[in-house]
């Protein structure tokens, strides 16, 4: 698989603080890459550096196998983007906004029609964008990003402000972009749930650092399952386990332990029975992706 985006030690420093630090992204062709991180993690800053909207303090960006700084216009002509809040000219209609982009990018009329149709804005295209709802503006932003049917689409939190039906619709649209139009999609979000259904790969950024990059399965595999035990007397059992240098926590009438292999489970079971405590249940729970994400980034976020 060809790599469409590759960054090397990409960093951005504002004052003395690094907003993005030594990030090595690798986005493969035809992927939907989910770029995940809590508020202030550095997602937008990274995406802006990919587009040349922010100059990296250190590191380099290459897109389509070419160095960005030396091939800026060529790369941009094959890239569509929606960064932060949707951009638009409020005094113009949706269609006129598309015309502005059409002039800038020199694309045929039929692309304008098609892009508006993809995001289902044909009916509202003659309304002033100032009178659009947030969701409609978001759709217009996506239409602008798709206008020239680029090889690479970069979308920064594209489902911001959409209702559940809209989110589902945009999710389907994003999912269809690779096979329908041969596009590669880089998609940022602060919600794992929004990305896990569409992304083929994910990158998790937190405090400016890329904590994980790979497939969902890899992320799942990276985290060890928990073992949940229910006994006749949890308090007593807990003391027994603590003597074995385990540190179980009590949750919903279960003792919960991390980092347990087959052998450790058998040992604890034997020890409890020897201590005269009946063991009712031993269960293995995989962590949900959401809790893996939260344990990587910290529940309180970074702000």
């Amino acid at each position, binding site marked *: 698989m060809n790599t469409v985006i590759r960054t090397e030690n990409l960093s951005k420093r504002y004052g003395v603080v690094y907003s993005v630090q030594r990030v090595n992204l690798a986005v493969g062709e035809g992927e939907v890459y989910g770029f995940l991180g809590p508020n202030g993690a550095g997602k937008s800053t990274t995406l*802006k550096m990919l587009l040349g909207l922010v100059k990296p303090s250190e590191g380099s960006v290459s897109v389509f196998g070419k160095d960005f700084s030396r091939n800026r216009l060529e790369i941009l002509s094959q890239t569509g983007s929606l960064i932060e*809040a949707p*951009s638009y000219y*409020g005094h113009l209609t949706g269609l*006129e906004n598309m015309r502005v982009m059409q002039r800038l990018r020199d694309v045929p009329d039929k692309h304008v029609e098609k892009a508006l149709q993809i995001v289902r804005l044909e009916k509202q295209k003659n309304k002033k964008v100032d009178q659009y709802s947030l969701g409609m503006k978001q759709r217009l932003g996506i239409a602008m990003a798709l206008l020239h049917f680029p090889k690479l689409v970069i979308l920064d939190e594209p489902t911001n402000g959409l209702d559940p039906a809209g989110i589902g619709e945009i999710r389907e649209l994003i999912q269809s972009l690779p096979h329908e139009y041969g596009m590669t999609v880089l998609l940022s979000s602060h919600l794992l749930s929004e990305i896990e259904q569409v992304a083929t790969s994910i990158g998790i950024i937190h405090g400016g650092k890329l904590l994980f990059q790979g497939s969902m399965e890899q992320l799942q595999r990276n985290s060890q399952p928990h073992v949940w035990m229910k006994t006749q007397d949890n308090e007593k059992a807990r003391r027994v386990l603590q003597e074995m240098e385990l540190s179980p926590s009590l949750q919903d009438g279960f003792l919960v332990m991390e980092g347990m292999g087959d052998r450790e489970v058998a040992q604890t079971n034997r020890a409890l029975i020897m201590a005269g405590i009946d063991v009712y249940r031993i269960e293995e729970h995989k962590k949900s992706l959401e809790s893996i994400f939260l344990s990587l980034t910290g529940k309180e976020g970074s702000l």
Partner: protein
Amino acid sequence: MLLRCLGAEWVKLRRSRIWLVLLVLPVFSALIGFANYWMNQAILQNGWYSLWTQVSLFYGEFFLPILIAICCSFVCRLEHVNRNWNVILAAPVSTPTIFFAKVVVVGVLLFAVQLFFLVLYICAGFIAGLHAHFSFPPEVFGWIMRGWLASLTIIAFQLWLSTRIQSFAVPVGISVCAVFVGLGLYVSGLGMFFPLSILTIGMGVLSQESLSLGELGTFAVMCVLFVTTGCALGIRHLTRAGL
């Protein structure tokens, strides 16, 4: 590439309200100037020339610089709101072209304004009945053209300010201050070294003496110099900024 940018600018401006300002300010300054002339006819004996001193005083010294500042603030505010720079600067056009397109657009608008002002001046002259007694001064066309050339220098600098400063009003305020600096420099004989006093000289506002060949040369060189400097500053800002 420039044509593509100009096309985009045109779509943005066509439906905007800037046209109203472009019409109103010249009419306003011509009216004030004309009224002034009308009431002081007794001392203003020099026909078309006297009328020019009155209308061009308000226009060239005050309303035109303000109008330029407003236009520049306007075309930049279009991009400041909703972070439209994100979209414009991620389009496959070079950053200098984006800036030049704005210079050209405002330049063309102001050329139209200059012609409109010329028409207003001629109308005012006819209403005052000047055509009956005096022949039309040919210098006026030169003043209009040189006024426009000098406007370009102001445009370049105002666009730089307006890309830097997100506010609409602050660059306009700066231009008002610059008007007074310009007057000061003109009075102290340093008029050729500041965009706003170049305008005073070029439009024959305070002195209707023809410029010597040397002065014309200096005028042209300074215009080119200022336009280049203003554009360079503006482009540098756009290329550097993390907008």
